[in-house]
């Protein structure tokens, strides 16, 4: 049986460039038919597949520093392929890990809203549709046919704009190709980021920018070898596919939990 090498789509977000402008959040909402309500100031009820967190170093004036951290779904690979925190727990196979692309899918029509996946996700990247999605009269005109609007009572999350992958594949089929070029499949947030802080591509492909930026170490579940790169909660063993770059040490440290006198280098990946 002939095997082909799987892709592993991932993202590198340069926090030195990220300005916290929020374009990624809105590009995502606009791309993915994300609903909105009159009051979205309660962030525990606000669906934002891509959420930009504001981090502070906690020091008093004038040594304070802030950094923004955009958080999409991490599309965790886990300690063995597909052992992401959420995929294994979904009782109805409504969320799934795709080995071909490394993308964690969410099938809204399969989901019956038990919310176990939300409980399992340490990144809070999963959102529940507490309400029916309602668009003001006429506004449903801008809804994209490429992403199905979700109904009340199901969980949703970032899909790495998988429909864009599908669209790129369709085009490729028309042109008699099977392979996609690096720029043919890019997520909406990557494309919109005015600072160019987000890079998206195949982490298994040494020619792709994402690979060159972080140089994932295949022996350690893709742990970045670039000293400025880190992943969120690396030591939980979720093995996320979203990498962050920061030249500031305090930012890299905020990315994970450390004991008081522990240095970043000492941490070990926990077997999850």
């Amino acid at each position, binding site marked *: 049986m002939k095997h082909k090498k799987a892709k592993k789509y991932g993202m590198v977000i340069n926090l030195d460039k990220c300005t916290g402008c929020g374009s990624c959040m809105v590009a995502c909402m606009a791309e993915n038919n994300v609903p909105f309500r009159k009051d979205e100031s309660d962030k525990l009820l606000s669906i934002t597949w891509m959420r930009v967190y504001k981090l502070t170093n906690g020091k008093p004036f004038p040594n304070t520093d802030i950094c923004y951290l955009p958080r999409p779904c991490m599309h965790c690979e886990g300690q063995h392929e597909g052992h992401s*925190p959420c995929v294994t727990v979904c009782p109805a196979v*409504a969320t799934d890990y795709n080995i071909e692309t490394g993308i964690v899918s969410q099938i809204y029509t399969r989901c019956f809203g038990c919310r176990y996946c939300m409980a399992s996700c340490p990144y809070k990247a999963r*959102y529940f549709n507490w309400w029916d999605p309602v668009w003001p009269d006429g506004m449903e005109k801008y809804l994209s046919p490429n992403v199905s609007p979700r109904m009340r009572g199901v969980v949703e999350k970032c899909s790495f704009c998988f429909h864009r992958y599908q669209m790129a594949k369709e085009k490729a089929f028309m042109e008699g190709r099977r392979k996609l070029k690096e720029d043919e499949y890019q997520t909406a947030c990557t494309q919109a980021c005015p600072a160019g802080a987000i890079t998206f591509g195949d982490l298994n492909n040494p020619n792709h920018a994402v690979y060159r930026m972080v140089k994932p170490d295949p022996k350690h579940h893709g742990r970045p070898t670039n000293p400025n790169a880190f992943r969120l909660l690396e030591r939980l063993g979720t093995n996320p596919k979203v990498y962050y770059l920061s030249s500031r040490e305090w930012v890299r440290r905020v990315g994970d939990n450390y004991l008081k006198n522990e240095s970043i280098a000492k941490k070990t990946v926990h077997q999850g």
Partner: protein
Amino acid sequence: MDSALIPRGVKRCSLWQFLLFISVVGAVLLWGVYAMLLCWIKGLNQTNMNDYYGFAIWIWADLAVIAVGGGAFFTGLLRYIFGKDELKSIINYAVLIGFICYSSALLILAYDIGQPLRGWFIFWHANVHSMLTEVAFCLSCYFGVLTIEFIPLILENRQIDRVPFFHHLSHNMHEIMAVFAATGVFLSFFHQGSLGGVAGVLFGRPFAFREGILIWPWTFFLFTWSAAACGPCFTILITKITETVTRKKLVKDSAIELLAKISGWMILTYIIAKTIDTWYWATVTAPSLGQTLMDFYSNNPLYGIWILFAEIVICGFVPAAILITKKGRKNSVALWIAVILAVVGVCINRWVMVLQVMAVPVMSFDYWAMYFPSWQEIATTILPVAYGIILVGLAHRYLPVFPDESELNPIETLPAEEEETVEPPVDLEQELKPAGA
């Protein structure tokens, strides 16, 4: 009026008194049903849950009723497998309580999901790797077992028993009850455990995550164990409450004491295991993930280290100490305290494993999430309690739940109806509390 339906040789209150009692509790039940319908029709926005608190009071109630309902399987195990015949006096009631607990649990699950009409996906499209799937399957199957165990009791109603088919059915089922009970124990072991697994496998949540063997985290075994330990306490507690309310002795002391003794040793061993587990988690598991014990118990208005103390010491070692001593078991007050503490303890444990898990931040820049249920959540959580009280009332009135009742309460005067006991409304509350716990 309904005396034909009432078991022979026992006294029951008059029908109107009974109906009054049912209608009072029924009103509470209707309130719960109303809230439940709201949740079904309008969706889960009726609750105070949110994206941080995806699991909340319902899941806790679910876990708690299953834990305390564990008395059924454990008593069944002792009675049918280990042949502890003393427990004959209480086994029916244990089954009934179990039946109520498990049917409540299923009901709660039915409104806890965002898409109730798709609920069957959990069976049809089952993901066998999910602890929740295991819960759903074992729970439903075990509910089937409890129904099977409950059916003979129903068939023993005086009028039903007259139908030869039912009479024989009841008899035949009794004959092979050990087989059913054994299946029930098997299923119970897994679903009690998998409920523990639900939290324990969350490797993204260091507060809940536990190591274990194969696919089962330690919480898997701790949950089964604690249910087996504390479930009988709940059975004893409800029996004691029923006895108080009906002002009658219903179960032989020997049965209670045996159950209490076994329960006591179970609690003791459980709480030692739990202590070791907590110790290992606090000193090895959590630090390896970069967190210390106190990270989970500080910087928030509710969850302090007191909760750990309350769960392990006050509601663990204390009831264990009472129940393993003969003096403690024999002393009515001490027994009351012990069973209440044990039940509270297991409920705290379930609370911690659901609600505190959700509250603790994982990302270093995240914050504690506090939560208080909406009235709809409270009403729907009380709903099973009301339902349980009604079912207990009906069963007690029309079914021979307590085989030793007539022996313990010989009837002196023949037309018994007038001087029957009246359920004082004050006692309702007393009954509400532990059943809901």
